[in-house]
């Protein structure tokens, strides 16, 4: 594996070099303390040392709103929405966010493969960056290290005065052509420590969840929860969507769009006639948490939560997914007699 040293002073040069290949999307400061992925115009605006972006790179492969078809009401006809490959470089992606993209890949490729997502996904190159876990990150508990290079084309690991740059795929090699960086001879620094942990090995999470279906934590959480759906919207592995019609002001044409939806919202499970199949907030909280740690994990063997901490960091009611899971773990352990 080839390793280079990217000095802090040369980051802008590196970004400018990347821009010569493909459009580059990277984290930028938004307001005083938030970060967001956006198209790089000025290389100096790129921030590689950040805690988390409010939304993950999911928004580029499954946009918050997307046209599924356009229709003509005079003709009563329709045609499919046009989708283009994203074909871009994603710079400064944290390991949990790429892990989330891989889970989305599974969702949209499994069963009936979906053209919209899989087309957009084409041509995406990922350059990862290590991060220092803050009070919300817990991806170590779901098997994703801050320096996890799996799936990246290039990975940057932070040193005091720059980054160790590892080239991991032929696509990564292509991007490095024409950029002269010194080789990095010494090792990589130790990874940062997590402040948040789920207190059970991830292989046991399914069992803990199954035992916690009727736990009182769901009602306790429901007392605080306001059902706003923020946790769904910021989650990098939530992919549920709603479909809506938009009619043009001429009332002769329009389009059908899908938009991000959330299982924490009451109408999510409503059917015509008024029946709501997941009425209580406790039921909805359980559904959300079970989707991350049980339902999809049972079939794929992987937790669907990647430990980014967004749902907790942005929760309007101060609900922590780690606390919920640890409550279940603690109650589960009470029921298990420890072997001597």
């Amino acid at each position: 594996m080839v390793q280079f040293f990217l000095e802090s002073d040369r980051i802008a040069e590196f970004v400018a070099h990347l821009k010569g290949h493909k459009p580059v999307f990277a984290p930028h400061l938004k307001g005083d303390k938030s970060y967001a992925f956006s198209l790089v115009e000025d290389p100096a605006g790129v921030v590689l040392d950040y805690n988390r972006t409010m939304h993950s790179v999911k928004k580029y492969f499954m946009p918050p709103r997307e046209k599924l078809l356009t229709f003509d009401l005079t003709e009563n006809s329709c045609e499919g929405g046009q989708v283009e490959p994203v074909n871009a470089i994603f710079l400064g992606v944290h390991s949990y966010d790429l892990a989330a993209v891989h889970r989305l890949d599974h969702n949209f490729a499994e069963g009936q493969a979906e053209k919209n997502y899989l087309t957009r996904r084409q041509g995406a190159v990922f350059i990862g960056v290590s991060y220092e876990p803050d009070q919300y990150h817990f991806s170590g508990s779901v098997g994703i290290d801050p320096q996890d290079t799996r799936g990246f084309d290039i990975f940057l690991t932070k040193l005091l005065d720059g980054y160790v740059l590892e080239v991991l795929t032929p696509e990564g090699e292509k991007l490095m052509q024409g950029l002269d960086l010194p080789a990095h001879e010494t090792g990589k620094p130790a990874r940062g420590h997590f402040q948040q942990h789920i207190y059970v090995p991830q292989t046991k999470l399914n069992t803990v969840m199954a035992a916690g279906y009727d736990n009182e934590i769901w009602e306790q959480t429901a007392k605080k929860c306001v059902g706003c759906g923020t946790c769904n919207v910021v989650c990098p592995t939530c992919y549920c969507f709603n479909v809506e019609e938009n009619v043009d002001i001429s009332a002769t044409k329009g389009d059908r769009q899908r938009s991000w939806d959330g299982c924490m919202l009451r109408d999510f499970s409503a059917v015509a006639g008024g029946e709501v199949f997941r009425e209580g907030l406790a039921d909805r909280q359980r559904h959300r948490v079970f989707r991350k740690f049980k339902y999809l994990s049972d079939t794929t063997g992987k937790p669907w939560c990647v430990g980014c901490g967004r749902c907790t960091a942005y929760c309007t009611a101060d609900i922590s997914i780690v606390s919920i899971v640890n409550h279940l773990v603690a109650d589960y352990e009470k029921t298990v007699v420890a072997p001597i």
Partner: protein
Amino acid sequence: MTNQFSSDTAPIELKDLYLPVMAEITDIKKMTELETLYTVQLPDGAELGHKPGQFVEVSMFGIGEAPFSISSSPTQRGVFELGIRKVGMLTDVMSRYQVGHKLGIRGPFGNGIDVEKFKGKDVLIVAGGIGLVPMRSMINYVIDNRDDFGRLIICYGSRSDKELLFVDELKQWTDDPRIEYHVTVDHGSPEWTGKTGVITTLIPTLDLDLPNTVTCVCGPPVMYRFVLLALKSKGLPEGNIYMSLERRMKCGVGKCGHCQINHTYVCQDGPVYHYPDIKALQEAL
């Protein structure tokens, strides 16, 4: 390591899952105040190719899309039927449609009824209210392949005699010596001469060859628990029970998440479930 999405073009020729085909309404029969039966024909008379118990997504541009059970049997060729209750915006608009109007259709979706599991057995259909719409697909399939099945027993419950669906066919079922048809209404009008009471009252009096009877149940959410109790106290083995469930199947292709019951997607693994597979799912029944 390789990047499997490295190609910058869209090389994979994938079908657009969300694009409907335009089908024509060829007949409309008003069944009750709220329910109407629409006969629909795909372009060039193409077959829908469905199984009993499956559903389609019906589109009306500018209004939206919603899932509807297919009410006709696959043995009916060239066209298919949708029995639709006027209950929301889409169905309200649809109730004003005329013959010749076109609808967008996607599907068929869902697993449908595995008719092989019913072949050679006595078939018991338990349908509550609008639950008869999907069950009629199975009933007519059995009638059209009569010798493949044992007895055909139909238990149908409706809120009132004014809300009975497919009344012409109900009469045929009553007259057909090879169909055991039982009906009850919750509240009968003065003209009603039949049984009064909820659907569960029909089950205890049935004379069933229990090990050889397979049932499919469909009705409003509240009905399942009580019908199950009645079937179990009758002694019907759990493994002989199938049920068709309703949820909000928005995309029909296992992507949008709306129809999920615990771990299962109704649009993929359902809407027809084998009772032993879902009896432990608290969100199901």
